[in-house]
C-alpha cells in the first residue's frame, strides 16, 4: 500500500522499455499468484454451487446458487457479529494507535527507532501464545478478575473471559501494530514547516491538528483501518480462545463446515460471500476516504 511507502517528492522517470524484460521480472511471481491465488478462488466459486451426492465428502456440480442464500441465512448471526466485532476492534485500535503513532513521530526524539521496534516486537512472540496469555491474565485464576472482584468493581459472578468484550479487545490487541505503523509512516512524512506555517497563521494547537496534521495523516489511517479490519473480520482464533458459543464469528462457521461437518459447498459459499462483502466495503471506504492509489 502506497500509504506505507514514502513518496520521495522527486519524480523518477520510469523506463519506457518496449522489450519483454519487465514481463520476465513479473512472470514467476505473478504465475505463482495466478496458480495459487486466482485458480483457488475459481475452484472456490465452482465448489460453492455443488451439492452432496449423499456420500460423505463427495459433491457434484448442480449449479445450486441457493447455497449462497441458505448458508447466509444460517450464519447471518455470525456474519453480523464478524462485521460488528471487526468494526469495534478497528475503532479501539485506532483510538490507541493514533496517539501512540503521534507520540513516536513527534515526541520521542532519539528514541524513535527503539520505540518503533517495540511496537513490532510483541509480534515475535507467537500470536497464539499472546492470546492465550490474555485468557489466563483475565481468566478466573488470573490477577485482574481477583482485583476487580475484591474492589467490588465487578460482581463475583462476572467473568472477563468467555465474553464478547474479551473477543473484541483480543482482536484490537492482536492487530494493533498493523494500525500503528501506517499511521506513523504518514505522520512522520509531514513536513514540520507546514505545522509551523499553521502556527504562524494564528492557528492554536488543536486547530493545527484538526486542519493540518489529521488530513495529512489520512492515508495512514485508511491503510491502518484496512489492515486491521480485514484480518479481524475473518478471524476465528480470538473467538475460539476468548469467546463463548454465543460469540462465534463467521470464521468459526467456515472452519467448522470444512473440518467438522465436511460440507465444502456451503463453506465455500460463505467464504465467497465474506470476500465479496469485504471487497465491496473496501471499495466504498476508499472512495469515501478519497485515497486514490492504495497499492
Amino acid at each position: 500500500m502506497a500509504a506505507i511507502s514514502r513518496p520521495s517528492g522527486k519524480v523518477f522517470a520510469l523506463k519506457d522499455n518496449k522489450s519483454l524484460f519487465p514481463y520476465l521480472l513479473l512472470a514467476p511471481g505473478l504465475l505463482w499468484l495466478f496458480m495459487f491465488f486466482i485458480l483457488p478462488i475459481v475452484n472456490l466459486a465452482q465448489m460453492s454451487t455443488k451439492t452432496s451426492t449423499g456420500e460423505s465428502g463427495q459433491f457434484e456440480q448442480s449449479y445450486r446458487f441457493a447455497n449462497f442464500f441458505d448458508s447466509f441465512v444460517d450464519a447471518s448471526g455470525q456474519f453480523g457479529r464478524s462485521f460488528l466485532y471487526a468494526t469495534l476492534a478497528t475503532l479501539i485500535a485506532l483510538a490507541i494507535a493514533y496517539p501512540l503513532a503521534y507520540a513516536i513521530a513527534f515526541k520521542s526524539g532519539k528514541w524513535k527507532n527503539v520505540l518503533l521496534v517495540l511496537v513490532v516486537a510483541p509480534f515475535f512472540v507467537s500470536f497464539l501464545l499472546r492470546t492465550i496469555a490474555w485468557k489466563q491474565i483475565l481468566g478466573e485464576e488470573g490477577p485482574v478478575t481477583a482485583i476487580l472482584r475484591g474492589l467490588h468493581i465487578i460482581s463475583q459472578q462476572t467473568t472477563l473471559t468467555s465474553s464478547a468484550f474479551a473477543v473484541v479487545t483480543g482482536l484490537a490487541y492482536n492487530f494493533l501494530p498493523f494500525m500503528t505503523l501506517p499511521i506513523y509512516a504518514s505522520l512522520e512524512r509531514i513536513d514540520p514547516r507546514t505545522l509551523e506555517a499553521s502556527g504562524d497563521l494564528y492557528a492554536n494547537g488543536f486547530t493545527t491538528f484538526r486542519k493540518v496534521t489529521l488530513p495529512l495523516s489520512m492515508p495512514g489511517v485508511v491503510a491502518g483501518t484496512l489492515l486491521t479490519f480485514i484480518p479481524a473480520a475473518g478471524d476465528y482464533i480470538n473467538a475460539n480462545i476468548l469467546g463463548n458459543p454465543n460469540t462465534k464469528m463467521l470464521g468459526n462457521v467456515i472452519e467448522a463446515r470444512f473440518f467438522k461437518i465436511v460440507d465444502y459447498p456451503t463453506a465455500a459459499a460463505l467464504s465467497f460471500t465474506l470476500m465479496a462483502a469485504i471487497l465491496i466495503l473496501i471499495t466504498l471506504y476508499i472512495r469515501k476516504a478519497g485515497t486514490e492509489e492504495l497499492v
Partner: protein
Amino acid sequence: MKSISRWFSKNLIRIYAALAFIYLFIPVLYTFIFSFNDSGKTNLIWKGFTLEKWSNPCGAPEICSALGNSFLIGFTSTFIATVLGTLIAFALGRYKFKGRATTNLLIFLPMATPEIVLGASLLTMFINLGINTSLLTTIIAHVMFCISFVVVTVKARIASLDPRLEQAAMDLYANEWQTFRRVTFPLVLPGIAGAALLAFSLSFDDFIITNFNSGTVNTFPKFVYVSAGRGIPAQANVIGSAMFIIAVAIVIIGQVLGSKRKSKV
C-alpha cells in the same frame, strides 16, 4: 498544583503512549515470566521458579519437531517469496509496461482477502485436484501470502531512492548493469532484508492458512493451538520468549549496522 497539572497536560500524549506500550507488553511479559514456572503439564498457576524448561526446551513431546517444521517452512517460503516479490517490485518500480494496473490489483487482492478465504480456497483446489496436503502444500500457501508483502516493502524502498545517484553513476560511464549492481541493488538491499524479515515472521506465526493446508504436518502455532485445550507446556513459553529475544536482537543489530554505515557516507 498548577505546575503539576501543566506538566500533566504537556506530557499527556507521552503518558498515553506509555500506557499503550504497557498494554502491548503485558502478554509478552506474562509469557516470559511463565517460561520459568516450575509447572507440570499445564502452565496455569505459578508454582515456583525453575530454569529447567530453558535448559530443556524440547522436553515437551513433539514441540521441537513442530518448531523444526516451522523453521523449514519459514526459511523456504521466505526465500522463494523474497526472490519472486523483489523481481516484481523492480518491474513495478522501474519500468513502464502494459498491464501495470492489473499487476497492482493482483498484488493488492491477496492482502485484502481474509486468511480464512485464502486458506479455504487453496484447500478446495487441492481437494479438487486430489492432492494431499503436506509440507509442500504448506510452503506453496506461505509463499502465496508472503509475496504481496515483499512487493509492497521493496517497492517502497525503490520509490524512496534518490534518482540522482543512478544518474551520477551513468554520468561516470557505468553501463546499466554496472549501475544496477554497484548502486541500485546495494541501496535497495536493506528494503529486501526488511521484506524477508517480515515474510519470515508472517510465515512463522501463521496459523489459519497453515491449518487449512498442512494436513498432518505439525508447526509451532499448530502445536500451541492444539495443546491449548489440555494446557500448554511451559516449553512453549520458552520458545516464544527466545524467538522474541532473537528477533529484537536481530533488529537492533541491523539498526546499529545501518546507522554506522550512514555515518561513514
